């Protein structure tokens, strides 16, 4: 894999330099720590929402900081958690008197550091609630949903919670809606190639030519099976055969669909995937409210994609449809 970089150890910080230079009016950093990113637009009296996690997943996590979405993000090294102190500092910065919601993916290191930051923030009399997203059906069976990893479906929890906070709802309501969105999402993906961590310089796992890893996680966590690479339609059918019965999504339901590229898959292929998803949903009598096709949670240079479905009701639809604007994601009122 040939890459564009300078010194591998500068990978994350130089990426951040570029982001601040490109989007100076929308985001900034605090405490002279580039890895503590906050929105320039957080309103007074609004609930602050913070996310965080390792680098290597753009536009996750920091790409969702902006108007109508999140207020702060703590950034770790590639696939590494940020520290509890960074989270505490961003918490203090985005607290506008209405408390702060931590909304992040279900990974041990992140949980430990967000938990710690919550304890410290409460010592400073800032009210903090947490919602931990885990939407990957391949990572743990039905019945033990709380062990599932967070993948691209967290986008929906960001979107719903962000719109709820922007609507000036109180912390308990923003928390409830983030949890509700998270509870209504299921995702699963397929990896066609491994990903490389810049400082290692090579992949620390492999996928053979002509094979795919079905259900692989966004850090290369093993999926549910390694198989010969099949056609796009066959892969979609297999992924949907895991997602649809899990919630379940049934005839008459209304959904939003997100097809996410993992980093090295062309948008052309994502639309080939989306085409099949839309056809299958139509066959099953599940109606499609709206769709997102592109990169939402990547894994460096991994090829492959994931599919996420959000089951909607009028409340979720209301917040999903609201506008938002960040350096990485723009949506007009639907």
């Amino acid at each position: 894999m040939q890459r564009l970089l300078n010194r591998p150890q500068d990978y994350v910080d130089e990426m951040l330099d570029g982001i601040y230079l490109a989007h100076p009016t929308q985001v900034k950093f605090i405490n002279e720590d580039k890895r503590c990113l906050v929105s320039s637009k957080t309103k007074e009296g609004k609930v602050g929402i913070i996310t965080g996690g390792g680098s290597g997943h753009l536009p996750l996590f920091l790409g969702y900081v902006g108007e109508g979405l999140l207020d702060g993000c703590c950034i770790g090294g590639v696939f590494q958690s940020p520290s509890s102190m960074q989270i505490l500092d961003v918490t203090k910065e985005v607290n506008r008197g209405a408390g702060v919601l931590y909304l992040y993916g279900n990974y041990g290191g992140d949980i430990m550091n967000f938990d710690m930051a919550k304890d410290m923030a409460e010592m400073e009399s800032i009210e903090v609630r947490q919602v931990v997203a885990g939407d990957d059906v391949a990572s743990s069976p039905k019945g033990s949903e709380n062990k599932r990893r967070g993948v691209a479906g967290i986008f929906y929890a960001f979107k719903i919670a962000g719109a709820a906070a922007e609507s000036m709802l109180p912390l308990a309501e923003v928390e409830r809606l983030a949890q509700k969105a998270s509870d209504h999402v299921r995702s699963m993906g397929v990896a066609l190639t491994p990903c490389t961590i810049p400082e290692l310089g090579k992949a620390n796992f492999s996928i053979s030519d002509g094979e795919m890893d079905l259900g692989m996680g966004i850090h290369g966590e093993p999926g549910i099976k390694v198989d010969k690479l099949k056609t796009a339609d066959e892969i979609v059918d297999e992924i949907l055969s895991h997602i649809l019965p899990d919630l379940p999504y049934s005839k008459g339901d209304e959904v939003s669909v997100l097809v996410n590229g993992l980093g090295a898959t062309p948008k052309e292929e994502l639309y080939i995937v989306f085409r099949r998803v839309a056809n299958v949903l139509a066959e099953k009598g599940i109606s499609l409210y709206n769709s997102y096709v592109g990169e939402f949670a990547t894994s460096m240079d991994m090829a492959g994609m994931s599919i996420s479905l959000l089951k909607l009701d009028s409340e979720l639809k209301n917040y999903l449809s609201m506008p938002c604007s960040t350096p990485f994601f723009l949506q007009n009122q639907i």
Partner: protein
Amino acid sequence: MNVVTRKQLVDFVCEASRLMEEKKEYLIELDAAMGDGDLGLTMSAGFGKASEFVLSSEETDLGKLLMQAGMVFARTVPSTMGTLIASAFLKAGKGALGKTELTVDGLACFAQDFVCGIMERGKAQRGNRTIVDSLAPAADALQKAAKEGLSVAECCKRAMEGAAKGVEDTKSMLPAFGRAVYFGEKALGRPDQGALVGYYLYQALSSSAQE
């Protein structure tokens, strides 16, 4: 008086700092064989800053003093082990809020809270070959000694012996946490470096309690 004074608690943190500095190279060596290799550096840096803090602080509430020391530790050492030690100080501090000295029972609570803070944060159990495997037997020994009505100095000595035994026991434990997991059976025969850090802490506590 059979209590732990503020001065003794400050001495404990300073002695821990001195010990971590003294053992730095040994910890680095042990950790490099099983993990990142930075444990010696992070522990000496973390306790170094924590001791500077407690020496300069005028806080008389021991709970607050411990919690603030934990915050200093977390800021100095952003790694997993740093967060775990900081969590221990926060939890132990919470239990000691409002106190200006610790009775023998208060000290036993401190020891239990200290290891609980780490177990809750890191989700490790006894027998997973971590720092818990020295801190937990130390806390048990301290509690038992406190129930027997022994002096603070004797209780701390028993706790240190409990920790030492705990470190010894890790030599036959398989790693279940962190990068060490990848080393599996290769870890056998060596003490766990995290458990050793726990032992040094009780060595420091015991030495400050003898005065």
